[in-house]
């Protein structure tokens, strides 16, 4: 399987869609503002949209060499199946989900020291980084050091 070509193919498809969106968004911005075209805030986005689409098209054509679209689609199916059954993918995704919960939910709702303690204990336990008791101790020490360093030492207000 030509993973590089497959990734180039997938990336270029996304970039082409993004480039087209940016181009039309730039046109809409300039239309909204009115006045001279090159003075409008949408002028550079229009240029960037064209450049992104152009570069991505070249990348797409290069990625379709050796087998064409059919080969890439077949590779994508194989790659998708492989990734779906990969243990590493599952570990990374769950790890990221824990990071997401910490960054988007816990950090906003709870005081810093509680949210960080929960996050550290949770992720170390999930990754089986160390024994639970040691994990609890490391997490508590880490949070204490950070709070003392920033809040007490440098008077930086943590949430």
């Amino acid at each position, binding site marked *: 399987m030509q993973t590089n070509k497959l990734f*180039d193919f997938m990336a270029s498809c996304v970039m082409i869609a993004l480039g087209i969106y940016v181009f039309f968004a730039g046109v809409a911005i300039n239309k909204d503002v009115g006045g001279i075209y*090159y003075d409008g805030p949408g*002028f550079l986005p229009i240029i960037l949209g064209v450049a992104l689409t152009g570069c991505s098209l*070249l990348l797409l054509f290069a990625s379709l060499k050796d087998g064409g679209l059919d080969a890439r689609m077949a590779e994508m199916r194989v790659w998708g199946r492989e990734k779906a059954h990969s243990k590493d993918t599952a*570990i990374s995704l769950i790890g990221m989900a824990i990071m997401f919960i910490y960054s988007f939910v816990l950090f906003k709702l709870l005081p810093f020291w509680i949210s960080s303690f929960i996050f550290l204990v949770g992720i170390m336990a999930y990754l089986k*980084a160390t024994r639970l008791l040691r994990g609890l101790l490391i997490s508590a020490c880490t949070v204490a050091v950070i709070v003392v360093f920033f809040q007490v030492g440098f008077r930086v207000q*943590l949430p």
Partner: protein
Amino acid sequence: MALEYMLAATASVFQPFNLLVLILATLAGLIMGILPGLSATMAIALLTGLTYGFPTGPALIALIGIYVGAISGGCQSAILLNIPGTPASAATALDGFPMAKRGEAGHAIFLAVTVSALGTLFSVICVLTLTPLLTSFALKFTSWEFFLLAIFGIMICGSLTSNGNVLKGWISGILGLLVAMIGMDTVNAYPRFSFGNVNLMSGIQLIPVMIGLFGFPEIVQSFTQVDAKVLQMTSFRMKDGFRKVRKNWFAVVRSALIGVGVGIIPGVGEDVGGWLSYWASKSSSKDPDSFGKGNELGVISAETGNNACIGGAIIPVMSLAVPGSAPAAVLLAAFLMHGYRPGPLLMTESPQFVYQIAIYLVFAALAMWFLALGIAKFSVKILGINKKILMPIIYVLCVIGAFLINHNDFDVRMMFIFGIVGLLLRATSIPSAPFLLGVILGPMADSNLRRALIISNGSLTPMLARPICVVFLIVIAFMIISQTGLPRLIKKLAGRP
């Protein structure tokens, strides 16, 4: 006047608190450099956020200290583990690891650390001489030149960091420019790509983008990494090491010059400096076959080259406000955050700044030398730290770093989102450095292009009448033509009946 500034900067370094900051930051940089997966860019990005509330002097000392420490620290894991602690030390591993396998780990580390310090010190001379020159040259720049400089910087960075596929580097740069377009534009105050979100209207902060792009992928990657076997540290004799450095003085000077030259090129990092210096020594050697098998000249060249890049990369930051490497891009953001305005007017507005940075670099290099040799005995222990414990702690620091900029949860969420972007870029082998450069140079490109077009009533003729612009245009056109294979296509088409 210059001497006065340098003496004042030296005196400030010797203030007890600043000295402590210098030692701690350099030590932190060394440890982050030693640990594979924690890059210099990540270290500076993290510290930029964390030092936001610091007074300017200690903050600058901390940033310079961690920069020098992180670039130099990478050599220890390259030698003991065959895995460079930072990409900058990739070339060092080629000869350093075979030396360690021969039982010369201590000698290799001593050589690497000593020439690292020498490389940084050499680059300081270039910072002091070239920055004022380049700054006075940049005073001739108008809006057209600044716009083309931004485009040139992103394109050359894209070309040199793309690992063979230049389109990916350019796509990365364009994506960065697009991120810079988010928020109120500088001319009409029109909220672009904000979707009615008040936070987006004020634009995306640079620090969360940097921490996300460079820190997040390393953290996620560590979840599934297996730790490699570390070789044991051996003792070394300083006298032998100094003799070897003296014997290879020409290679040291050549590598330092290459390093500074590479550093000045926008966006091209310390890794390229190390590789090019290594290549220059190998190709000029009478025994090129010995390289890769434990030739100490390989270690000397690579480490001098990558550390000389530090000063080289800072030169365009201060004179043109265009970063010479990814860590320097973060440093530029830090300078801006602390109220300095690098660029052509720097020598007029804050003339002491260049001398301050040069002196901080000198002391950081000296501190690095002592500390790196001091902790060399413990490198094996540092390398043995469990990444699955360390990386979650680093993530907590990333979150604080992103939060402290505005004391806003939104920046933490942005850091996470750009972390996912960084992960996707890495998966598709798209370099992150041009992306970051695009985010930094985007506002400069946008405002200068529009200002220039307004002044010229939409005409491109004034641009073509300016010699510096013509040079930029020729180089940009040459890059597009040579890198996209257009000559081959034309040849192919011409060959057809």
